[in-house]
């Protein structure tokens, strides 16, 4: 139940939300920067914890509906409160997180503890005033969007109009309005008339960051379709189809499975998008459909182990990927993308220098406040000192969820049960 299932920074980076298998959401808040300690940024401490989803039972199918939080997406902040969408397999909820640090005192008819005063004892009138109190963070569900999905929801994405959002399950994508819970529009439907003909499912979907009528969705066959909602109400026909032709020298029984895309993320500018399949990360230019502009191998040494990974189901692991904030801040940040791997390793690729690095998120190997040591996996031949051989990788220690602060080089990396927050070395 403590298995982390999603990690997401909010738009300012001040808050970091995690969802877990037990349906809980934990939000961390960055401390305000201490002027005296200019060499380190604020730490993240627990800000709020609440139970977002509960397990349910589908009586029709006699199956449980997991309360595991699949995705969390923050809304941009409009007032003092924060809003986020969280979803499990079937239901999406809009949560309001608000602070309370004052409370009214000095009522005429009530005592401080709430008991009513005897009216005959009231001799003077006073105006209640707000007095400070200990900070209390409250989370309350403001909207519940239920019963819109027959299949398991894998993605939610808030539109740039900040009024609508999409939710995607295995076969359909729906468009919701944040204010309306009892209706949604179906914008993509790939369910075949005869379910026996089903060979492809939707794996992820996202709205374009700037164009409110454009979205993409990826499939289990390694394709990405870009759709424009202005073209038709039901976007079953794509406007663009992104697919890289298969490399014949790499063909195997598992080609299709490893081509299945587990995550798709637009760059902040909207010019590029990144996809993650089992072995690689690909950067696509939206203007070019026939192949990606960059491909980074995450753990190519696993290619010869695919049969075992199929047997133990690891080949179906869904790794996510993320961009750093470089698109927004033109200056000092080089463009880097990050994704997870096994053995609690995670990888970063610098798109300019083409250098990559492998780091490990583990307590044993890294003391707090020490610089992470780069790791290396030895695929074949003699193992050098400090290298790890492929056969001693722990496939139960997988990093599926990572997130990058929108403005600074602070990253959140989730291992199975733990959340690690790293920042780059300053000065």
């Amino acid at each position, binding site marked *: 139940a403590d298995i982390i299932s999603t990690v997401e920074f909010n738009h300012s980076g001040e808050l970091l939300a995690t969802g877990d298998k037990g349906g809980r959401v934990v939000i961390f808040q960055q401390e305000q920067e201490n002027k005296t300690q200019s060499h380190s940024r604020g730490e993240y401490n627990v800000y709020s914890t609440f139970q977002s989803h509960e397990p349910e039972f*589908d009586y029709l*199918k*006699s*199956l*449980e*509906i*997991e309360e595991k939080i699949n995705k969390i997406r923050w809304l941009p902040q409009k007032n003092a409160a924060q809003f986020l969408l969280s979803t499990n*397999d079937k239901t999406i909820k809009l949560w309001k997180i608000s602070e309370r640090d004052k409370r009214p005192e000095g009522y005429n008819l009530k005592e401080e503890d709430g008991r009513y005063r005897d009216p005959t004892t009231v001799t003077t009138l006073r105006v209640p005033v707000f007095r400070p109190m200990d900070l209390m963070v409250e989370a309350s569900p403001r909207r519940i969007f239920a019963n819109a999905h027959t*299949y*398991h929801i894998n993605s939610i994405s808030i539109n740039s109009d900040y009024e609508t959002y999409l939710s995607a399950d*295995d*076969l359909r994508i729906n468009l919701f309005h944040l204010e309306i819970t009892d209706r949604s529009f179906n914008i993509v439907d790939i369910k075949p008339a005869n*379910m*026996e003909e*089903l*060979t*492809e*499912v939707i*794996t992820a979907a996202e709205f374009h960051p700037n164009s409110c009528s454009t979205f993409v969705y990826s499939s*289990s066959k390694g394709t990405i379709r870009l759709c424009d909602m202005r073209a038709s109400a039901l976007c079953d026909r794509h406007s663009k189809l992104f697919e890289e032709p298969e490399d*014949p*020298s*790499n*063909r*195997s*029984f*598992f080609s*299709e*499975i490893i081509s*299945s895309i587990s995550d798709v993320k637009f760059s902040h500018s909207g010019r590029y998008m990144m996809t993650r399949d089992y072995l690689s990360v690909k950067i696509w230019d939206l203007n070019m459909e026939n192949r990606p502009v960059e491909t980074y191998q995450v753990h190519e040494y696993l*290619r*010869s*182990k*695919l*049969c*075992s*990974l*199929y*047997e*133990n*189901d690891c080949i*179906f692991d869904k790794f996510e990927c993320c961009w750093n904030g470089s698109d927004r801040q033109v200056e000092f940040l080089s463009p880097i993308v990050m994704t997870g791997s096994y053995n609690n390793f995670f990888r970063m690729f610098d798109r300019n220098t083409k250098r990559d690095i492998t780091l490990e998120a583990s307590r044993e190997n890294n003391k707090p406040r020490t610089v992470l040591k780069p790791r290396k996996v030895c*695929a*074949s*031949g003699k193992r050098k000192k400090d290298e790890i*051989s*492929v*056969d*001693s*990788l*722990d*496939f*139960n220690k997988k990093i599926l969820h990572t997130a990058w602060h929108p403005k600074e080089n602070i990253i959140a990396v989730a291992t199975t049960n733990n959340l690690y927050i790293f920042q780059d070395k300053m000065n």
Partner: protein
Amino acid sequence: MLGKGGKRKFDEHEDGLEGKVVSPTDGPSKVSYTLQRQTIFNISLMKLYNHRPLTEPSLQKTVLINNMLRRIQEELKQEGSLRPMFVGASQPADPLSDNFREAQPAFSHLASPPLLPADLVSTMPLESCLTPASLLEDDTFCTSPAVQHDGPTKPPPSALQPVKDSFSSALDEIEELCPAPTSAEAVAAEPAADDSKAQPSESNIHKAEGLPESRTAESKLMDPLPGNFEITASTGFLTDLTLDDILFADIDTSMYDFDPCTSATGAASKMAPVSADELLKTLAPYSSQPVTPNQPFKMDLTELDHIMEVLVGS
């Protein structure tokens, strides 16, 4: 399997059995390709059939595994050697499909997948069927596990013979089985075949019979064998429809919804005779006596008591 544990030497001369293309036309590697394909087929079937989750299985995973199986079946079809034999066995399934489409087909198709080839694979040497994926990665066709650690670079020639022989002897077995089904299999096929003639209301009950029967039989057969691959492999050979209907059709809940008080016999007042009727029907396949639903049951009361005792465990 991978994970922490003894580190193996990584053989530099490894052919990259999985990573590179192994064309079916290469000489000695044709067997390796076939073997690998068979192993993957077995693993895939096991994944589909053995999964009994509390929550709905992931549709993506199911679709990917199903695609894998389809691709392998297509290849086998094209290779042509095995298909013709099973046409006969798969035909009974077809007329049923329409009937079942209206009334929850999923489990009836579970009933028909022949337990037929249950015997088939005992003749296949265990090593060739049970090749764990890790052995394939070492590119060894060991006929004995002891050889594993030496990691020979070429498959020992002796391995080729047993594999081919086992295939042909396995095919012989199937041929024998197909024209003259033995009692258990015949009865498994019969209630399923009968359904196409029976009343729709009865067909539900027959399907329900098929379900516990096939499940128990399946588990009986699976338990003694160390690997479940064999049985599931043969299932795949026999019927295409079976796979798909199980995967994507609605779940038949008629068994779970069964309320003795509202059974088709209409005898709402007495619980005992009604349950005895049902009992008889479920027992029919085991006793190898064809039973039509409209016949009054002829079992002795003493026999019935005995059966009730066994079931209740008193």
